[in-house]
């Protein structure tokens, strides 16, 4: 379960990077690449091991005030990312 008062970071098996040729954020890992959706990229790039999930959601909410289910969307995505070991 994702805790809102906890800080996460991208797992060290992965490298998060913006790829101009893909016009997307990607996760790079040994001999592979995951192309991220725009929202997934925006979320992952805020994970620095210091910001808590709650702080991150507040930042995103300020940037995207029209998004009304942001908390659920972010925690759901982070849950999936955690299960796939993209983040820890």
């Amino acid at each position, binding site marked *: 379960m994702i805790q809102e008062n906890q800080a996460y970071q991208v797992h060290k098996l992965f490298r998060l990077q913006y790829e101009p*040729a*893909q016009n997307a954020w990607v996760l790079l890992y040994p001999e592979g690449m995951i192309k991220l959706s725009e929202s997934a990229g925006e979320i992952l790039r805020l994970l620095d091991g210091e910001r808590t999930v709650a702080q991150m959601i507040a930042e995103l909410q300020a940037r995207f005030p029209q998004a009304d289910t942001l908390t659920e969307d972010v925690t759901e995505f982070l849950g999936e990312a955690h299960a796939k070991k993209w983040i820890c």
Partner: protein
Amino acid sequence: MPKSGSAENSINPPLWLLLELTYRCPLSCPYCANPVDLGDPADELSTEDWLKVLEQARAMGAVQLGLSGGEPLLRKDLEVIVAKARELGFYTNLITSGIGLTNKRLKALKDAGLDHIQVSFQSADPDTNDAIAGKRKAFETKQELARQVKAHGFPMVLNFVISKQNIENIDAIMQLSQSLEADYVELATAQYYGWALQNRDQLMPTLEQVRTAEAQVNAVRDSQNGVGPRFIFVTPDYYETRPKACMSGWGNIFLSVAPDGRAMPCHSAALLPLSFPNVRDSNLKSIWYESELFNKYRGFDWMPEPCRSCDEKEKDFGGCRCQALLLTGDAANADPVCDKSPHHHKIVSAAESAAACRNGETLARTVQNSQIIMQTRV
């Protein structure tokens, strides 16, 4: 800006760049995928040539970089190449036998920004390992080295080429991988090109051996609870009835450069009777988009029957051109692994012949054997 309708609009840029930095190697594995013609080390590209290739490929959008060989550590400029690649934004994968990877070089590679190291092992049993590799103490060296790789914080993939010689020890191989704390473990039978084709009868495990090993791998996976290495088991396509989607299609995502600068859509393609553009003479962009070679089997228009009218062609691209050439005599034919191919019986009989082979003596991948084979071919 490319004009509309130009090649660049319909062709994907390469995502994967594989640099075979040298065919020199301290080991002599009989399953080696290098061409039987190991060429002349004097023809290897210079450091500047390799750096130029990196720049051109990255500008086109390539992002995964494999550095292999032969043994890439034999290039003294490996650290320079890694540093440049990392600076350009590549994810850098070093594919090595581990021989020659000292602590000092590991540190230098870490400092240069290397992302990941793949170490090949031949077996979990020291004697079998060293016999297959053709080098004494190879196992000991690799085991120590694998520990150092993890100690330096690299993600580590272990690669075991599975053959008759080691398939019955697959449990021990998985235990070794767990104790070395590998992140991923590839347990793959050889692809039978190059040296591996010469040794196919001696190497290819029987269907029964493959099924047993597969069950052993599944049992370990089930007991892992998500902890420990991720095991990837790849069976020989000789036991399938549909081919693999080789390279995800010719000239679609993959670009490989041989030690002497020949650019190819796959590192095995050197065996095809085609002429290869060279990075010394042309830039990668024109090689990828415009060369005759890269357009030869691109897309679907080149296909003869049965692939041409087959509704599975977008899934497997008709399989592997090298396998088609080696087994049917024409690289444009359907990969004979496919049971719609009129040549499929050749795959079946090759598997039978390997199953009947009791002689374990393989031909070592050595410069001397390469010269003998090349002379008899001329």
